[in-house]
């Protein structure tokens, strides 16, 4: 257990924990785009920047990305100093030039009083902020179907050779984790399309509703040892079945009681 000061308040935290999670746990809101519980932090979006200092630093301070900074005894953290706000404003201003159409970034920027970027808007830009959340979650899932392609300002997230990714299982993790929602996908009839690859969707045996892609189910069956039957019925029908069974038990119990 270590003691740190956040905005003047002494707080207990577990050693090895990152600053961002401690700050958020105590109800202090700071923005972050690339942070997600499921993946290792990388500090790509730079928005979670805070100011840190220590008693013995004698007034010296520095700015760090809180998602990557482990707590340590005696750390004094300020989350909303004028300097920190200025840094966040600059980042948001730049991001707004990079992705002018992203609602998430527009909203974040508005909270910091920026309604229009002061920089030149990137022509033909998409809303990708190159935070690598998608490639990291794909790696965590054990697939690594997509990656960064190219270099410098031409770098983009794409499947190998710009073709249908052979390692993709249509799980949608990349599209769902994307903070700016730039990865397109569709579910139409029994087909899911993502990264230009088509996947057959499993239909629920009971209600016929589409659930997950067959490749995804096969992968979970193989890697996580989940029985195949589990994927044959959708969660809704599983719940209804459970409720029906519970109802029966209650009815029987009441009968016995009478």
């Amino acid at each position, binding site marked *: 257990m270590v003691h740190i000061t956040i905005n003047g308040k002494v707080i207990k935290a577990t050693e090895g924990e990152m600053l961002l999670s401690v700050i958020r746990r105590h109800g202090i809101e700071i923005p972050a785009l690339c942070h997600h519980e499921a993946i290792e932090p990388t500090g790509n979006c730079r928005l979670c920047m805070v100011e840190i200092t220590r008693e013995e630093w004698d007034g010296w301070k520095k700015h760090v990305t809180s998602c990557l900074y482990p707590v340590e005894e005696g750390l004094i953290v300020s989350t909303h100093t004028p300097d920190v706000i200025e840094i966040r404003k600059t980042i948001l201003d730049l991001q707004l030039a990079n992705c002018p159409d992203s609602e998430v970034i527009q909203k974040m920027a508005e909270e910091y009083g920026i309604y229009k970027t002061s920089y030149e808007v990137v022509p033909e830009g998409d809303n990708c902020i190159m935070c690598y959340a998608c*490639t990291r979650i794909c*790696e965590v899932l054990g*697939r*690594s*179907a*997509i*990656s*960064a*392609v*190219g*270099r410098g300002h031409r770098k983009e997230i794409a*499947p*190998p*050779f710009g073709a249908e*990714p*052979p*390692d993709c299982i249509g799980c949608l993790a990349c599209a769902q984790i994307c903070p700016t929602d730039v990865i397109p996908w569709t579910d139409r009839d029994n087909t899911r399309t993502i990264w230009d690859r088509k996947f057959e969707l499993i239909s629920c045996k009971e209600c016929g509703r589409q659930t997950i892609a067959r490749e995804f189910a096969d992968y979970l069956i193989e890697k996580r040892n989940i029985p195949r039957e589990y994927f044959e019925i959708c969660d809704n029908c599983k719940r209804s079945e459970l409720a029906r069974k519970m109802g029966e038990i209650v009815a029987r119990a009441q009968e016995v009681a009478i």
Partner: protein
Amino acid sequence: MTQQDVTRLQGIFGRNPREPGSLIAVLQDIQREFHYLPREALSETAKALEVPLSKVYSAATFYSAFSLTPRGENIIRVCKGTACHIKGADLLLDQLESGLGIKPGETTPDLKYTIEVVNCVGACAMAPVMIVNAKYHGNVPCNRALRLVKKA
């Protein structure tokens, strides 16, 4: 990929430890032997080193030393840095382009020559500079450029 290519590829895998850390070394060997990174070779590399294909492709597209399109046996680099530009690199490049029938970044159909434009090779005193394979040619008169290339 022909059987011969597959054998060459197996030779490259044999010379390097079969581990993810060999990725760049293997790609360099492929680039050296094939003059580019054929698509099948990248897939085979992914399998041989147990690296996801996406990561192989990512590394292959990151380094400018690697090319995904066939390149010529002879790489001609024409410097268009400030000094070379002033001393007529454009004329030199014109001669090469019309002589070989290709533009910078392209390769002749017989896979003999590739022209590349580079920004500075640090040899401004002998501008205009042209590098054919590893040989530096300085003070190249534009009418000699093609002859120097053909001699390589």
